[in-house]
């Protein structure tokens, strides 16, 4: 019973943050702001779902920790792709509500 509650809790938290990330992607006004939604919320969202899976399968089938691999992988890769995308956007000089920095080394390599 307690276990079921924990699994349900993590599932709902995970689904909520996944949805929030996607909503951010869909409705924020410029690219740099849209970048925030998926990189943070979606990563934690999937993390929540994976935690639920970990608890559930540990209870049903005995230790199940391999979900940890996906979680860690996502946490390591999310900043990298966000960073590269931001760099690409700066290179293309996408319009932004925050004033773009002048003398940055954007895209210069």
């Amino acid at each position, binding site marked *: 019973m307690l276990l079921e509650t924990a699994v349900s809790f993590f599932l709902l938290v995970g689904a909520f943050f996944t949805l929030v990330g996607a909503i951010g992607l869909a409705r924020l006004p410029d690219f740099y702001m849209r970048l925030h939604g998926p990189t943070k919320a979606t990563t934690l969202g999937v993390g929540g779902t994976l935690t639920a899976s970990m608890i559930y399968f540990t209870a049903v089938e005995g230790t199940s920790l391999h979900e940890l691999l996906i979680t860690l992988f996502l946490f390591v890769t999310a900043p990298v792709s966000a960073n590269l995308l931001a760099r*690409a956007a700066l*290179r293309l000089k996408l319009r932004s509500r925050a004033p773009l920095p002048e003398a940055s080394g954007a895209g210069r390599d």
Partner: protein
Amino acid sequence: MLVFAITVSFGAVGLALLLAAWRLVRGPDLPDRILALDTLYISAVALIVLAGIAWRTQVYFEAALLIALMGFVGTVALALYVARGDVMH
């Protein structure tokens, strides 16, 4: 309660996929579309894990892991292509 949570989560993640797909179609710029793809595959991982819980099976775990890996490589390749004009250097 678990069935309820799983159903609600399916709905939320499905909606997230639709929103990401909308952004993918809508654009307006290349980085937006890449970001939408990125969101799409991360949500797909969540969907697969959810399906695994719903059907009480772990056979889809490798699929989720592979999607995460391939999605990351794809995002990096596309972002580098846009930022630099080539992928390797």
